[in-house]
């Protein structure tokens, strides 16, 4: 099983599986010998289910909370994720990585941070948010604006409550459509932006969500005067290798797997096929 190829996965144990919503589960995965994955927030792994295939999955746990394991928050949406959802604790999955460029934590230190995840976009951002909260003193304000389609689709509800309870986090959450139990804000994520005021030059914004959301969230962020070089997004692309060879994630002259998946808006605003 030991091999030096970047294409050969390493088998890792699924230590825990926790359902988060109807479609999403949280998988805790341990590498052999208690080794740490050594990832940065925003990076991804290639996850294999032997016999089914391999897919890129962002890492949702913070490096600051590794404990010899990492977490993937996965929506059941295709063959690989379907098979993963059927995997029980104690089962095995193949892991390659971590791959890609994550969020530039160093450049965020001392800055106010505005997080705007939409839906499953919280998965990669949670890695960064928890890293930031574990070094809370190193950053300015922490603002989180989170939107989901329905209350039942909110991820990590226990952590959302923690964030809401902290007085050093400004947390706002909304759903597109409420239900009888929902007493919070209703409306798309952009309806949260009027609730906050920022010092644009000292703010770094980080967003992740479906393509349609980017268009409108970017208008809000730019409307607040946040410079294009201080707006970070994480893009989703099909990937087959993770190392810049297979071609599937190519966006004009950029390779999402190596140049990204995290980009600044300035980097991609003139790249026609990025957003």
């Amino acid at each position: 099983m030991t091999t030096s190829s970047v294409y050969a996965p390493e088998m890792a144990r699924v230590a825990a599986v926790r359902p988060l919503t109807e479609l999403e589960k949280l998988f805790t995965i341990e590498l052999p010998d208690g080794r740490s994955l050594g990832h940065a927030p925003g990076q991804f792994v290639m996850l294999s289910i032997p016999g089914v295939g391999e897919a890129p999955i962002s890492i949702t746990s913070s490096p600051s909370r590794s404990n010899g394991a990492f977490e993937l928050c996965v929506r059941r949406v295709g063959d690989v994720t379907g098979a993963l959802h059927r995997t029980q604790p104690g089962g095995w999955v193949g892991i390659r990585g971590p791959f890609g460029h994550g969020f530039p934590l160093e450049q965020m230190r001392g800055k106010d941070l505005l997080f705007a995840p939409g839906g499953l976009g919280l998965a990669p951002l949670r890695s960064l948010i928890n890293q930031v909260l574990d070094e809370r003193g190193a950053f300015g304000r922490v603002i989180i604006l989170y939107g989901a389609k329905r209350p039942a689709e909110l991820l990590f509800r226990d952590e959302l409550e923690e964030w809401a309870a902290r007085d050093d986090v400004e947390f706002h959450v909304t759903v597109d459509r409420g239900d009888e139990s929902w007493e919070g804000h209703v409306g798309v994520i952009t309806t949260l932006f009027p609730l906050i005021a920022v010092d644009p030059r000292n703010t770094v914004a980080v967003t992740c969500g479906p393509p349609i959301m980017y268009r409108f969230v970017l208008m809000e962020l730019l409307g607040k005067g946040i410079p294009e070089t201080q707006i970070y997004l994480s893009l989703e692309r099909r990937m087959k290798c993770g190392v810049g060879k297979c071609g599937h994630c190519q966006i004009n002259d950029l390779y999402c797997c190596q140049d990204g998946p995290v980009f600044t808006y300035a980097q991609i605003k003139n790249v026609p096929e990025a957003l």
Partner: protein
Amino acid sequence: MRFTTPDGLRAWLDRLAQEIDLIAPTDVDGHALYRPVSSSDEVLLDYERPELSAKDYLLPATEVMLRVEQRGSSVTIEEVLPDRKQVLFGIRPCDAHGLAVIDALFLEQDPPDRYYRHHRERTVLVGMACTRMWEGCFCTSMGGGPMDPTHLDVLVRPGEEGFFLRPVTPKGVAILEGLEVTEPRGEPLPVEEYNEPVPVTEPAKWRPLFGDRIWMRHGERCLSCRICTYVCPTCRCFDVTDRVVEVQPGVTRIERIRAWDACTSTNYRRVAGGHNPRPTKPERLRNRFYCKFCYYPEDFGPLGCVGCGRCILSCPVDIDITEMMRDVAERSGG
């Protein structure tokens, strides 16, 4: 330069075929194709550009990457790396040039592609110079030529009464040991016919034409059939899939395979959630040409086309890469 008679060349090829895998142009139902051969009788010495490129022998159309065996909860993963040496005899200079283009991404960019590198290292390229440019050929516009030795280990030039062999690399010198050399007779054949050059527009000048109507015009009739990628000596995108080979009580054997893929195919970029960042045919065709003439040279160095002309001859709806190149040259002002 070494000279040998046709018999001398065939004797050498026969010896090679006994020692290592010999791939050479051969007649397959009236089509010249690079194929494994076991004797020099099968080897064509006078042939046009083979109908498929030679990349199949370095980046196989389908390649087993890993063998996975599951026994209960234990999983073993084995990499599959064939180690037999192979010689590609009679490879045309454009096809060797195509491999050099792939090298720029698969060998020179970190991390190198382990499988491709392995195939590259076990392969000797003995090229055969072309004595003319055939229909569709435009290698001379792409930095190559009918007698270009640059990307070969040995260049063979057909002559009036035999063959002139020129080793280009140490690998080439070594493979020629055992060749029966005689006193040269006659002259190497010159190139009888060159095709009109095609204008090549520098990468930066492609960018302003991204929204141009030429892409819609050419792309509308594309069938997304992907034959252009299939025949192309530089297209190297691949898909990775798993195949269950054997299921027995307690044991499952799986192969992870990679296979050529094409950016012109409908679902090439579709993500599991359904988003497809390049949903229309003109967009996908445009990407194919931008990859070759803009992105690839900017990212990795060489142009992504060697001018073999195969895509022109094989396209069922007559999409012609040289027509595209002329359109781009004209619109970008040359």
